[in-house]
């Protein structure tokens, strides 16, 4: 589903991501962990086609994000760590905008909006401008907009920040359902307990380099993920 080969991204003299390779298969929830500034967001943004990278290749569902970005983006959804959405639109208008871009027929989109907005208890606020939303509401709207077009790959940067416990729980269920249906999820998090419980595979990044990757059992063995992470960071 997602194949990252020798990804390198530099900002001036600083190498943010250094020769990173990673494969994510359909059905996998892949956690991406690392300290602040390790290169997680840069990697996710590169995969989403937001950042242009210097070396390497990123393939999404068999297509290169460099050579065929539109085809790749049709198959993916990206949720950033800070959901800066269009504040001049209402929630419903934003969702319809996203649905139009993904060419979702009117009846299907309405059914999905109804379903996800009800799940996240956002229905009554959909007519409000996004500017009036709290951080958590924006995050919920971003999640709905990601799920509305049934992407094959969903990439999320710290998706649980700002969500209330109920919404967090719901999102975890949705992530599992998505992967059980053949999709894949690649997300970054600092909440190691969540990663440990939720992820099938995990990658640990330090100073732009991947220092450990594999299934949860392979990475942590008999220790907790927190112990392994802290040990690797030292």
């Amino acid at each position, binding site marked *: 589903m997602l194949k990252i080969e020798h990804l390198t991204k530099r900002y001036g003299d600083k190498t943010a991501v250094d020769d990173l390779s990673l494969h994510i298969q359909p059905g996998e929830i892949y956690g991406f962990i690392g300290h602040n500034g390790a290169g997680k967001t840069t990697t996710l943004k590169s995969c989403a086609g937001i950042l242009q990278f210097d070396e390497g290749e990123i393939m999404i569902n068999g297509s290169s994000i460099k050579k065929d970005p539109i085809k790749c983006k049709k198959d993916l959804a990206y949720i950033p760590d800070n959901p800066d959405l269009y504040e001049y639109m209402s929630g419903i208008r934003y969702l319809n905008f996203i649905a*139009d871009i993904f060419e979702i027929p009117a009846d299907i989109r309405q059914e999905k909006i109804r379903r996800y907005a009800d799940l996240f208890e956002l229905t009554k606020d959909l007519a409000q401008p996004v500017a009036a939303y709290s951080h958590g509401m924006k995050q919920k709207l971003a999640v709905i907009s990601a799920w509305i077009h049934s992407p094959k790959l969903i990439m999320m940067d710290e998706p649980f920040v700002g969500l209330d416990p109920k919404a967090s729980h719901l999102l975890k269920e949705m992530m599992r359902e998505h992967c059980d249906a053949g999709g894949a999820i690649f997300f970054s998090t600092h909440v190691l307990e969540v990663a440990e419980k939720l992820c099938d595979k995990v990658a640990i990044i330090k100073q732009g380099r991947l220092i450990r990757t594999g299934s949860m059992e392979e990475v942590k063995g008999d220790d907790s993920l927190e112990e392994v992470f802290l040990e690797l960071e030292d």
Partner: protein
Amino acid sequence: MLKVLVKKQITEVFRNYLYNPKKNTIRSKGEIATYLTLFILLIVGVLGGMFTMMAYAFCGILYEMGMGWLYFLIMSGTAVALGAFGSVFNTYSSLYMAKDNDLLLSLPIPTGTIMTARLINVYLLGTMYASTALIPMLAVYWIVTGLTPAKLICGILLYLIVTVIILMLSCMLGWIVAKISMRLKGRSYITVLASLAFIGGYYFFYFKVNDYINAILENAGTYGENIKGNAYLLYLFGNIGTGDWAAAGIFTVGTAILAGLLWTLMQRSFLKIAAAGGSFGKKVYTEKTVSQKSIFNALLGKEIARFTSSSNYMLNCGLGIVMLPVFGIYLLIKGGEMYQTLNTVFSVIPGSMLIIFCTAFCTLSSMNTIAAPSVSLEGKNIWVLQSLPVSGRQILRSKALLHMILTMIPLLFCLICAQTVITASAAERIMLCVLPVTFVFFTATAGTVLGTSMPQMNWTSEISPIKQSIAVVITMFGGFIFNAVFAAVYMIAGHQIGTAVYLLLWSILYSAAGYVLLKWLDTKGAAAFAAL
């Protein structure tokens, strides 16, 4: 602390001139000097030139009549109108709506210091606009009447007093706009309507200014005596510039007291307004049937939503939308009379009336700079478009198309009105319509190209990309310069090839240039957008 905040404000205003977002580096000294020189030339050249001519028209005559004070009163009044007009929305946006207000208010910085830093920024921008009238006012007076120490010092005091008055007016009007915004729904439209009424009055005065100048010059004695008798303070105010120490002292002290009072009042309400963040009437969602839009229409709809959501954007970049129909209606009512009068005046050069009309249509169209700040206005939201399956080509074309639609609809109305007024051949009538349309195509693509090439993505107040970006300045004044060249070349030599042919050649030029720019947008522009 204040110095740090002011530096931050100023850096933000001139960020585009100092920083190269493509290379992520500070521009070289040569580049900075070039950009700032270009900016100053455009401001000083266009506005300064206009006010220098106005100053020369008044100064000599009024001085010889012993009414130098009336000269200063008229010129200072013009500067106040210009400065306050230019600064009122800047005050509202940068004082109350700045995106970093929450951050700064959470830091251990006194509220007064934050407000003062914002106000210094407003003061400097208001002063920049007003200086285009004030500096010619003082320079022309000193040249015509000779310079003495009293005239020099009182002149400088007058300059400072006028700029502080502008700041006070901007603050009061900005405060009113903020209060309205806190209470009303659909405030962007209401703000636009209120502002248009103000602008309407402004332009009414502007177009009548020649009549007023003549009337004042013819009846200067009577007006002067009336002002002296009924509004002595105005007489005293005008006297400052002539070197009247007493008047200068009274107004310096008076202005300082008023400014202090206003500052105190504003400081009391600043926190409340800045922290309010606008009010949103509670709308309950009811599901409605929606129809699926094409990708391009969705992008265009997004651009329309962005434009109509911001009174700053509509007023600063879409004034032509109002001015074109107003001119069209004016043509319907008084166009015949105006056409005949001007035709007699310009009868020496055949077809010059059509050129004047075309210049007017294009100049009014140039008041629309919708496309130029459009990329910058994506700001922190840019990730949305960059992560969606849409090409840079579609995005940039939707931005250019919005500019074209919003300019061409009122332009076509204006052109239809003009057809009822002019006397011309069929070919000339067609070209009268074709040229402005091609000009709009050119300016829409040029604005988008400039906006994509010189983006300003990290702003804390949207007024920054809307009003202070290089792209907007070049698009607007560049349009004016093109129009001036278009008219001048015809008057000098172009008329020899015939009006219709001349218009055709310029139409081909604008179309070709617009096409080249569109192709740039489709390729290099799209790549530049993806790399933002």
